[in-house]
């Protein structure tokens, strides 16, 4: 027998795994792609369209619902006729006050772990249960951990200077450098080289990104780091969001866990999707994200996502723990 033929028969009965067997590996990938989507997904290559002036400034407590005639600007790409909007300036003023009243958490040690439990729903999953993920990352970012068939697996993270993602510790360092004056903060995030030049290999997208789109995207990324967020800075972020053209607040936006919150979004021409950062309406804690497709998204002749498709995520738990595998 030919040696190659014999070799092809060796372990030829090795099975191809089914979707269930691959679920854990797929979930690890999706966690990575979701994180990247959250960091990069607010990318807009379209022209900014100023809508902020369209929001009526109605003085009232906490939330005032605003009726907006949307037929002029967006036409049939409007997310939903039933969508209700709040006065962005009121929401951000209130959010800033609530944030300023938070107490500052102590700084974690580099060998402590940040725990996060999240839920995601992909657009093609319909009303399924979604994917729940639990993950741990060392505060210094050198290791990650997770349960795999009930067994805790700790993995080393090789340094990748070309990546735009940061360890919790480096996020904390970056946050400490940021100005707490809303105008200075906005100028900083509009032009921060870290979010322009990285990740390496993504082409010239970073430089082409509209500064307002970048400001909205970067502040959204920062607001997800609530475990290590200085209260004064968080307040400044809400005030800065209120100054970005096109940023609005929709009421009753659902996260992947079905919780309804305030959906902060940025409207601009040419966007295929509307992305919401969802905040709890009273505490202004970060609940999750929601991406709504405003029109069919094609790839060549393939329909990738139908208009009205939704991707969503929800933060179910997070905190600083002593060891990988601990939840509190």
């Amino acid at each position, binding site marked *: 027998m030919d040696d190659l033929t014999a070799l092809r028969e060796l372990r030829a009965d090795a099975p191809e795994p089914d979707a269930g067997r691959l679920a854990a*590996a797929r979930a690890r990938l999706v966690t990575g792609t*979701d994180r990247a989507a959250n960091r990069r997904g607010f990318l807009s290559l379209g022209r900014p369209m100023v809508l902020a002036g369209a929001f009526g400034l109605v003085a009232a407590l906490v939330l005032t619902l605003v009726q907006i005639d949307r037929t002029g600007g967006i036409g049939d790409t409007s997310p939903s006729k039933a969508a209700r909007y709040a006065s962005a300036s009121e929401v951000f003023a209130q959010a800033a006050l609530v944030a300023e009243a938070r107490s500052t958490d102590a700084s974690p040690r580099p060998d402590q772990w940040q725990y996060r439990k999240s839920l995601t729903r992909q657009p093609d999953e319909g009303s399924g249960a979604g994917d729940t993920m639990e993950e741990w990352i060392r505060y210094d970012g050198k290791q990650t951990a997770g349960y795999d068939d009930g067994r805790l697996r700790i993995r080393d993270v090789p340094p990748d200077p070309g990546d735009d993602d940061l360890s919790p510790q480096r996020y904390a360092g970056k946050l400490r450098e940021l100005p707490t004056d809303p105008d200075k903060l906005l100028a900083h995030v509009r032009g921060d080289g870290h979010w322009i030049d990285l990740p390496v290999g993504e082409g010239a997208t970073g430089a082409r990104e509209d500064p307002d789109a970048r400001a909205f995207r970067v502040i959204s990324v920062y607001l997800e780091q609530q475990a290590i967020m200085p209260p004064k800075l968080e307040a400044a972020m809400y005030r800065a969001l209120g100054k970005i053209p096109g940023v609005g607040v929709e009421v009753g936006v659902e996260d992947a866990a079905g919780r309804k919150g305030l959906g902060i979004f940025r409207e601009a021409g040419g966007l295929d999707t509307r992305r919401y950062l969802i905040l709890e309406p009273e505490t202004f804690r970060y609940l999750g994200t929601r991406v709504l497709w405003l029109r069919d998204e094609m790839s060549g002749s393939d329909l990738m996502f139908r208009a009205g498709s939704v991707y969503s995520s929800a933060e179910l738990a997070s905190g600083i723990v002593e060891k990988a595998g601990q939840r509190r």
Partner: protein
Amino acid sequence: MIADAQRAETSDRTDDAELIRRSRDEPGVFAALFDRHAPELHRYVTRRLGDSMADDIVADTFLAAFGKRGRYDATRPDARPWLYGIAANLIGKHRRTEVRSYRALARTGVDEVAESYADRVDAEVTASAAHRELASALATLSGGDRDVLLLIAWADLSYDEVAHALGIPVGTVRSRLHRARKKTRAALGGADPTAIQEEADRG
């Protein structure tokens, strides 16, 4: 009818390069690449290292690929060679484990790797004489030669695809394959007078 048939044909499949390109702005699209290639890649890793390693290596392969997607050569519509190349590096870190299993198979006829995925835990998988001989040859190959041989025999890659996967010239693929097959042929044929010389050459 004709229009429907045409649409079915053209919308059948977006090529991998296009998926990867799209995933730069829409990272979630990368999961489609996983659905397309993970089963086959998982089987290949299982065949080399056994059932218990495959999940981790497949997950690590796709995460690493995702991180490098900005550097993907867009002229290559099929991403399999690229993925196999990333997996080859990860498999290479478990070289001792892999070689140990070939040695055990050659010596005892018991294939730990085949047992790792066999349905019945108590079923001892006993190899044929030819497979024991092949295993003894696989154990003596250098890592690079073994990668070339098994990417061709088990992953069905072409010479050109193997070259691309491992980042080596096609000429090197040919010479590595030649060297590897000398050993597998010799193992099957009983003895190869050049084997000792080869062993010394390899360094």
